[in-house]
């Protein structure tokens, strides 16, 4: 199980901007670890994907954009670190549907990053590990370590 999310500060700012621009609808996308040529370190990048639900309580990746993202990830040999999405009418904690649908789409190694861009929710970003079904704890919050 991952023990934290290491995130460049500029990427977090970028994600919060996506969330602000999409509000009141939820924004969504992937957080990728991109291999870099001739370098053992890798770069983290956000890949925004359209929320085809265009809803303030629910998100769903646009299927056409999801396919394009899948091809892009395969072609670049990137690793999916997390799915990010925003909450615009609730706190940055996973709802039951967040948990159930995350389990259906990804292995637990893919984290869930929830953003709340509005001031009333303290403009937070919180990261969660979604445990496999059948365990006592459904979601465990992980620290986000910002890189500058």
């Amino acid at each position, binding site marked *: 199980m991952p023990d934290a999310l290491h995130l460049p500060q500029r990427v977090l700012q970028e994600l919060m901007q996506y969330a602000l621009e999409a509000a009141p609808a*939820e924004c*969504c996308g992937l957080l990728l670890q991109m291999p870099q040529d001739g370098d053992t370190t890798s770069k983290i990048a956000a890949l925004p*994907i359209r929320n085809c*639900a265009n809803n303030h*309580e*629910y*998100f*769903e*990746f646009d*299927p*056409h954009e*999801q*396919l394009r993202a*899948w091809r892009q990830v395969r072609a670049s040999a990137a690793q999916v670190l997390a*799915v990010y*999405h925003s*909450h615009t*009418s*609730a*706190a940055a*904690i*996973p*709802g*039951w*549907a*967040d948990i*159930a*649908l*995350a*389990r*259906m*789409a*990804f*292995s637990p190694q893919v984290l*869930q990053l929830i953003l709340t861009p509005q001031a009333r929710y303290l403009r937070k970003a919180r990261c969660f590990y979604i445990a496999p*079904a*059948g365990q006592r704890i459904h979601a465990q919050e992980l620290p986000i370590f910002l890189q500058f």
Partner: protein
Amino acid sequence: MDIHVHLPSILHSLTNEQPSLKIALPEQASTVAGLIRQMDTQHPGLQARLLDGNKVLRFINIYVNDSDIRFAQQLATPLKAGDEVVILSAVAGGNPNWQGSDGWQYLLHGAA
């Protein structure tokens, strides 16, 4: 005829961890439905994770050569030799206030 199929990682446990399959499909079964039946004979349990009766599960996306079958002929979408089929789990979620919609019952299917 041979069809190349790519499966979501969540289903790799049913295919001996193979992310992609090459399926030999008889001409008389050259539809997406026929493909799924053929895959299930080789990898039992796959059909149940993709279909609910004669419909694709709500949170499964199936594409034939970049075209979503929902905008073609659904499970009757024809296939030809060399076609590429990509199957992805829909990525979605609802916040703690979300009451659900027509897809809510499918959230319990395969979540265990």
